[in-house]
């Protein structure tokens, strides 16, 4: 009897350990995959950013630490036509650790339900996630700005040439005359693969060179 209980107990311990391991592996694999796809999506859209000469907007409409808004025709059917006007796309990281993508689907130059001028710069209403035009969730559990993360890496950093010809790197680039000289955007996504438990990070970094603003 004792041996039966011991053997059964050991089997159950192994069983629960393995199912736990499976659960973690499956969830972390999914999270890692989502994070990688999100960063790939952001990179491809940002590097394709294109100015809109007709309304005098530069390619990068907003360049902030936790969000970015650019004009692009990426992934638009028929964008081989030079007549296609780039439309606005934004990526924003909310306080709940989710990165959302917004898109100006009706091409009216405005992202309805999305605050393009938040004050302060990095505080947003999470209701945008449901009311924002073209809102799509890209990835969850982004912990760049989590209280337990130290140091806190900026989601977006920008390298641009200032008015003196010096290369600057900053998480905030204001005014169109500076934004038009952004050469590349560094993207750093820190995703917690084990939310609710001891954090296990997927640390993904990449850089998007703005093809339409690079030095010739």
């Amino acid at each position, binding site marked *: *009897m004792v041996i*039966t209980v011991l*053997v*059964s107990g050991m*089997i*159950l311990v192994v*069983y629960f350990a*393995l*199912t736990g391991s*499976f659960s973690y*592996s*499956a969830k972390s*694999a999914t999270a*890692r*995959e989502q994070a*990688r796809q999100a960063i*790939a999506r952001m990179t*491809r859209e940002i*590097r*394709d950013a*294109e*100015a809109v*000469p007709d309304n005098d907007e530069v*390619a990068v409409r907003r360049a902030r630490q936790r969000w970015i808004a650019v004009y692009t*025709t*990426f*992934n638009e*059917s028929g*964008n*081989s*036509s*030079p007549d296609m006007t780039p439309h606005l796309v934004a990526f924003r990281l909310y306080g709940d650790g989710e990165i959302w993508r917004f898109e100006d689907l009706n091409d009216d130059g405005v992202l309805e339900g999305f605050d393009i001028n938040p004050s302060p710069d990095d505080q947003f209403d999470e209701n945008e996630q449901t009311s924002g035009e073209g809102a799509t969730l890209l990835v969850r559990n982004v912990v760049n700005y989590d209280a337990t993360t130290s140091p806190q890496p900026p989601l977006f950093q920008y390298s641009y040439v200032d008015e003196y010809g010096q290369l600057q790197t900053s998480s905030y680039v204001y005014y169109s005359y500076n934004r038009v000289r952004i050469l590349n955007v560094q993207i750093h996504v820190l995703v917690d693969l084990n939310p609710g438990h001891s954090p296990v990070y997927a640390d993904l970094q990449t850089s998007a060179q703005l*093809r*339409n*603003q690079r030095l*010739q």
Partner: protein
Amino acid sequence: MSIMKQIIPGNQRGSGIVMLLGIVATLAVLATSLVWIVGNMQHNSAQDRTRAKSFGVTEAALDTGMAALSAQWPAALGTGPDLGSTAEATFRAEFSSSEYPSPAAGTSFVTWQYYDNQDPIDPNITWDKGSPEQPDVPDNRVWLVVQSNVGAKSSRIQALVERAYLDTGLPRGVALFAGGNLLSNGGGNNPKIVIEVPPPSGIQTTVRVGGFIDDLSVSATNIVDLEGEAAGTVDEVFPESLREQLKAVAQANGRYFTSVDEAQNSPIDPNWSPQGGLSGLCVVEPSPTSTVTLRAGVWNSETEPGFLLVLGGGNIDFAGAGEYWGAMYTDGTVDKGHGAFIVHGMVVAAALVDMRGTVNIHYNDNVIARLANRWSLKVHLVPNTWRELQPVAGG
């Protein structure tokens, strides 16, 4: 009889093994799922890597296409570069097939297309015919579309490219510059320096001589002679930066020579030397220093003028009834020559110019103006026209 048999009723014997089998089966399912998930992740990683490689190859192909257009701009129907199967094979050879797998049979590794920037676009106009505003006035711009197919992944990029000219920045209205003296005689052949095509209104045609002019009747009366300091310096007329630039371009395009014979016998290059020899862009830096003699014949034309630079202290001389259309420069001297030679354009010599022979200089402003956009140095992207497109099947 064992203890187990004593304490477990007969109809419950073997329950342990049943439980064990159930757990093992469950774990087997989980293990299989895990293997599947890991395999799926690895597959996705491989797909990502292939997509990134495909994009890298496409950008390389874009650069290659621009280089081809730079070397051979499609100024007229059928004059552009051939970016067909030979170009593809050459390009493909730059990438190992193990690292950059070939696409499915029947699909090219890379394809290039270029066509004019008409409005609307017509991909059949494969030369710089016009612009969106003026369909028949070339604007030095064409669309370049590149697609690469690596393994199962494809990338496609489109950009408007523009050719940038070799900017000579030659001053208008300078028929002759001599850093030293201008030797001439008062014979009946004067004037030998005349205006064939005048510079734009408001610009005076001049003969600039750092030393003195033997006989002022060497230039026509409508030409202003400037002597001494008033003549300026050779760098003001034919800057060292321009000489260095022309030398670098000539070196890059097989038009730089260190022997006079080599220059005079150089082959035809449709872009850089339409007649071969001293035609087109020709930079000679003879070692040891020697003289480049232009003999009977006609080099270049008013519509396609040339540059002849003799560097390293070499001299220029003439013999026979020849004609040269373009600009000549020498670090050394210009000899008086023999025969009735005519230079249509301008002559610049860092030292003495001897015009006691029968050489004539006909200042031709059309020639000087056309030298400003005679050759394209490079092709660059027009800002704000780069787009990543959705790949097309078989494209």
